């Protein structure tokens, strides 16, 4: 016989839900987590024989030390912000879109087609068409998992993950085959875009930053002020409730995933035509994955996304300087990012729960 039930005596340590915390308490808790993680990161830096304060200082100053450094930092933040906004739409609906990477690539492919084969068009017309192509390409790529989700309830986390790699290999196919640059002397790469197909610059940075800022506002308004945004949150809360309220849940899922992918596609267009000025297999380069973390960290708030993306970019740009100054690899940005995130992931727990330790005699 198996012992049935173990509720008759409490375990030594129990987890209990705690009363709602105020916003400032939550903020304080998160700041503490970041602080502890910086200390932990410092211990790591110390362990490999460097001075943590010196490394942290270099990261900060490295991101801001010159006009060019600031421009580079902003350039890192653009794709991260845009793609985080993209996944936010899906996440709000509790649709686990891990496929931003693929949606970015799909958008970049579609935009690149016009950059490569219609570079003679009027500049602004061409940019507009490329923008639309990126938007639609990414949107359609996002629509695929949504279609199978509503039709057959296919697991979207795993399916979007597969689509990332399918998109990636489409780029390598184009690179090795039909879009191979004949002028690259045997190297398999796609030709650099004509200047006419490159994004213009404002303040020395391609206009992607204006796109990103505009999208922050658009997504904020869309989510919090429109009927469609309301539908997204209801479907995210409970599909039953949404159905009861007479919403067409399938249509909401399809529409939202189109937009989620479309924003990813815009990111791909901006990266290919603004930053790389060509299409490569690294056009997304992991941004789609980092975006998931950023969106989650920012609690799906578009303005906070902007802040978190900027902080990540400082870390990214700054560790490039750490590399040139101390000879450490840029991977230290990823290590620090990881440590910080682990602590924040852990700290979320204490916002909602607390441990209660059983006292002797079973009394609490």
């Amino acid at each position, binding site marked *: 016989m*198996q*012992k*049935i*039930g*173990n509720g008759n005596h409490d375990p030594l340590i129990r*987890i*209990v*839900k705690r009363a709602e915390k105020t916003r400032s308490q939550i903020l304080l808790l998160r700041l503490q987590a970041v602080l502890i993680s910086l200390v932990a990161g410092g211990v790591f830096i110390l362990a*490999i024989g460097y001075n943590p304060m010196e490394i942290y200082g270099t990261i900060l100053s490295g991101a801001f030390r010159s006009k060019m450094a600031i421009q580079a930092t902003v350039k890192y933040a653009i794709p991260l912000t845009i793609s985080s906004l993209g996944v936010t739409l899906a996440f709000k609906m509790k649709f*686990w879109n*891990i496929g931003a990477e693929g949606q970015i690539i799909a958008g970049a492919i579609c935009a690149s087609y016009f950059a490569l084969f219609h570079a003679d068009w009027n500049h602004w017309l061409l940019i507009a068409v490329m923008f639309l192509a990126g938007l639609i390409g990414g949107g359609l790529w996002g629509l695929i998992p949504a279609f*199978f989700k509503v039709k*057959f*309830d*296919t*697991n979207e*986390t*795993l*399916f979007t*993950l*597969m*689509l990332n*790699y*399918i998109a990636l*290999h*489409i780029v*390598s*196919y184009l690179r*090795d*085959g039909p879009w191979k640059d004949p002028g690259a002397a045997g190297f398999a790469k796609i030709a650099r875009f004509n200047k006419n197909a490159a994004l213009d610059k404002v303040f020395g940075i391609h206009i992607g930053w204006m796109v990103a800022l505009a999208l922050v506002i658009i997504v904020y308004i869309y989510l919090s002020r429109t009927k469609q945004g309301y539908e997204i949150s209801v479907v995210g809360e409970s599909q039953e409730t949404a159905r009861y309220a007479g919403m067409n849940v399938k249509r909401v899922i399809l529409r939202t995933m189109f937009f989620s992918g479309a924003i990813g596609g815009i990111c791909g267009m901006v990266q290919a035509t603004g930053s790389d000025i060509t299409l490569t297999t690294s056009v997304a380069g*992991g941004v789609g*994955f*980092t975006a*998931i*973390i950023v969106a*989650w960290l920012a609690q799906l708030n578009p303005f906070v996304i902007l802040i978190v993306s900027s902080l990540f970019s400082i870390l990214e740009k700054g560790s490039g300087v750490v590399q040139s100054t101390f*000879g*450490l*690899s840029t*991977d*230290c*940005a*990823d*290590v620090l*990012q*990881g*440590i910080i*995130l*682990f602590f924040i*992931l*852990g700290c*979320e*727990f204490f916002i*909602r*729960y607390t441990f209660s330790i059983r006292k002797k005699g079973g009394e609490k």
Partner: protein
Amino acid sequence: MDMLIKFLVAAVLAGTPLLFGTVGEILSERVGHLNLGVEGMMSIGACAGFMTGYYTNNFILAILAAFLGGALSALIYAVLTVTFFANQNVTGLTLTIFGIGLSNFVGVLMISRSADKTLKLPETITAQMRGIDFAGLGKLPVVGELLFSYNPFVYLGIVIAIATGYYLQRTKTGLNVRAIGENPAAADAAGINVTVLKYVNIVVGGGICGIGGAYCSMIINSGVWISDNVGGLGWIAVALVIFAGWKPVNALYGSFIFGALRVLKYYAAKSLFPFPNAFYDMLPFLITALVLIISSVRKSSGAHIPASLGLNYFREER
């Protein structure tokens, strides 16, 4: 014929790291935890195994270190998702970014501190890794090369896969594990220690992934350290779990099939199959996507996703 044997041997060799990753991830997913950190855990295992081999010159120690590295990184994931209810997808992705970063970082650091600015495993350990001498069985025609020509990792992987399959399908603990994956609240009510079994499965699973990582760093590049040496195999392993229907024994042939797909482009007669290389690289993911769709269309088939996959279990809310 000769070509065919060479192809099959190459398929097994290419499939072995996937086998470790897949079996490890199956253990974790069976208790309901979708760990997207396979690539990260494999990277940490790759680094721990390689560095230990480099300094101790001992193959067994290297394997143990790889297991430990993978297990410790999985422990981070387990603490965060099992005890702290952190979001599984976000935690797993973070583990991947962290793991790849840490592995590359340590690699570059060690290279900069080595005398000749490269890291190459010493001769003794590469000899230990080369192959097991089955009292001359390897000399047999056809079967000799096909069955007895591999490095110890291959046999270790097969043993682990079969043992894991036995554990999950035939032991009482395995039954409990499967119960947790389907419905943790019911399992809890039946007196199964959900938390302990979740921890054990996730951590051991991570350790197995770590050994797969060591295969990447120690075998694939002939004992020379390079950055990003897992190179996306962890993600294919996540895909393979679906293909294998969450069963370790299916992972066995699944990983060799995927291995075959990975090397197919070097062996396939291009006159018969005039596909570009990118198509062959895409194939594992394309097939997995199709498997996902087919298995969700036929809900009743035995190979279905553990019902609680991706959901954390909080006792007080059951």
